[in-house]
């Protein structure tokens, strides 16, 4: 039995095709309404509202994992395709710039923030996992503080042991001056986000500076410290990228909620005052 993960090209195109079809039908519909002197914004608005409601349903679906609804993967796929569809429908509905009122402007800005954050999030979700896998370690986000603390403790006990066994404090002093900073918490966040090697370079630099002042015995300790620093570097990398994977939702979801609230009010106003 072959297990296929994800969606094949055909399936993806099928979804995209369906979305395009809906867009096309709506577009034709608005043209037809326009030419019979109707208010086409009502048609495109309702379709857009439907699509937005469907997008919002994804959040509800996530709260109901025990219900026999379609797999989340399909929902995500539809959410993605639907998100782009909503963007096009929004353009159809408002001519891209939204209405000129304060309300319309706020709604437009929030809608774009939601859309753009969604696109960025999608991009990250498709790119970052692979990078994380390549790092060679795997760690649960919530365990990173504990892991870093454990590494720090280990490094510190190594330093103490070195001082005790060798009797010199060269390594300890250097540690306190430089590496101690590194082991306190995740460092080089931005550099890690952009896949830089600053972290590795920095640690190596600190060790190289020290190396010629150390005895053979001390060097052994330094090597161990270095390997722990390497371990922490990978965890830092995970921290940086996993933070990205989690924090983009801090923008997307609250904004989406605000958009939803505003859309409902918009709908009420239209129903009361216009239709």
């Amino acid at each position: 039995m072959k297990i296929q993960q994800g969606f094949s090209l055909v399936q993806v195109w099928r979804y995209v095709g369906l979305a395009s079809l809906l867009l096309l039908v709506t577009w034709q519909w608005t043209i037809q309404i326009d030419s019979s002197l109707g208010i086409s914004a009502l048609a495109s608005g309702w379709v857009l509202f439907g699509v937005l409601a469907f997008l919002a349903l994804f959040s509800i679906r996530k709260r109901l994992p025990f219900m026999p609804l379609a797999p989340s993967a399909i929902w995500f796929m539809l959410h993605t395709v639907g998100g782009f569809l909503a963007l096009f429908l929004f353009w159809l509905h408002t001519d891209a710039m939204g209405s000129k009122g304060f309300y319309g402007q706020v709604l437009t800005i929030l809608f774009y923030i939601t859309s753009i954050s969604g696109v960025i999030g999608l991009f990250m979700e498709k790119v970052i996992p692979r990078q994380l896998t390549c790092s060679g370690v795997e760690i649960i986000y919530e365990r990173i503080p504990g892991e870093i603390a454990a590494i720090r403790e280990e490094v510190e006990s190594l330093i103490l042991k070195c001082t005790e066994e060798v009797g010199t404090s060269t390594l300890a002093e250097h540690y306190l001056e430089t590496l101690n900073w590194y082991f306190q918490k995740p460092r080089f966040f931005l550099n890690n986000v952009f896949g830089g090697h600053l972290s590795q370079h920095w640690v190596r630099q600190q060790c190289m500076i020290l190396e010629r002042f150390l005895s053979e015995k001390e060097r052994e300790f330094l090597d161990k410290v270095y390997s722990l620093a390497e371990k922490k570097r990978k965890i830092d990398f995970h921290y940086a990228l996993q933070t990205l994977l989690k924090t983009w939702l801090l923008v997307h979801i609250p904004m989406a909620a605000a958009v939803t609230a505003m859309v409902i009010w918009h709908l009420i106003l239209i129903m009361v005052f216009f239709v």
Partner: protein
Amino acid sequence: MAITTQERPQRWDQPFGLFMTDQDVDRLLTFPEISAIEESKFPAHCSLKGILKNDARVIKYSAGDIVIREGDYGNSAFLVLDGSLKVVLFPGLPGEMLGRRTIRKKTLWQAFKQLWTQRKTPEVRDVKSQGQHSLVRATEALGSSQVFLQDVPAILDKNKTASLGKGALFGELAALGRTPRTSTIFAETDAELLEIRWQGLREFRKYDQGWRRLIDQRYRANALNAHLRATSIFSHLDDKDLQEVADATLFETYGKFDWHLTYNKLQTKEKTLGIKDEPIIAQQGDYSDGILLVRTGFARVSIDRGNGQQTLTYLGTGDFYGADEIFRAWQGDSNVSLRVTITALGYAEMLRVPSKIVEKHLFAYWSSGREGFRKGALQSSVESRRMQDYIDRTLTDGALLEWAVEERFVNGTQAMLINMDRCVRCDDCVRACSAAHDGNPRFIRHGKTFENWMVANACMHCADPVCMIGCPTGAIHRSMSGGMVIINDDTCIGCETCANSCPYSNIRMVSIRDDVGNFITDPQNQKPILKATKCDLCADQISGPACVFACPHDAMRRVDFRETELDENTTGF
């Protein structure tokens, strides 16, 4: 740091019965079944008395106590010393009576209700509803608890039963064959039983003619025919021919019965060398002398490649190998030797059907009629081609399977496999799991990884569920419907046997709390009450495994490695 030293663990460091005395042993020797054993045949390091003292124990059962439950996995056999027992015949007792959890799928509304009824505090148990707790009572002899039946006359009334009297031996097939108990046996009157664990039983079979004959005969009589009958190549045989095949079949046992206990202690490095230590069942290049059937356990199929062995696949219960080679040899093809090496993975019991019998009953049939020939040729060619496919596979293609075999993940039928290239670490699976289990996750999204594949710490619902061996109350059991391994929280006494037995650490003990969130402790010693928890494959949920359904990126699958070939999708969606 203080250096801790430990003596090399010896056999019988931990005796089976804690309270067995020499007097008990002497008394046992007066029973005819024991006295018939020739004590002199036993070697010094493993004397009869030693076995009786360390690998056996005398247990007293009160009327109504369940001795063995249908569906349980056990590692011991019982000899009735005194009293009378009842075997419940088909259809058997309902699960609740045995202290099992009945899986009832939730209704749509019940499922939906979980949205607000799931608890915010972890591991809350409803202490007021004792429910099935009353089924559990302490049995002093075991130092633990037992499940008992409450209304024996009614059970006798409603069910067909058979009696077991003094001197009866039962449970030995399940113990040696690692198969589930086929029926429930309970004490009709107060009874005294000798329980012999599988190690002792194995020695009895090895050194005593009488016991071996008894055990083998029982196996041949009860299980072998059914096993052969269920094997596709023998399905055409009539009863008489089948009996002839059965009579000629050889039993072979490879590896250690309790491999899982030592397996976890091995370092990673040793594991990769494991193949060298595995008992060889058949060697590549050797002349094939019969068809090999796996009775229980797993066998690794590998070939020599370079300086090492490449694992091609593995054989599980019901699989067989070798028909193709002997068939070709029988047809006159010279230079037909085994193309692969077969080794036991941990523990394997094999059946070897000798070539002569195969030729007589199988090949003769294959070449007799048109239909038989077609079937035979097809069988042979399919088998050959499949094996050739495995051999032709590149190292990269086979690497995942090899790793899975190495890590014994092949045991699992529902291993949680996560593609870390797709996983965005959102923990939706964990949250879904907890939502489906009253606010408690039942797996951890960590685990061994190979390339981008992670087998997460979730119960794999093994084909050979070693966790179930030794559960004193039968709380952990295999569901009759669906085959998943389930723990009945109500009858779980928190003894950790299962958690310690699971080679994959997929069972976790949790301290339970009351409604308010306080830990529930044992009033006698203030120790927190523990419960064993693990994935139940969302047995009572209508959605199926919530974790898989909740994954927005389709990164997770529950897989059986043998049946699975992972095909990564290139679209990324």
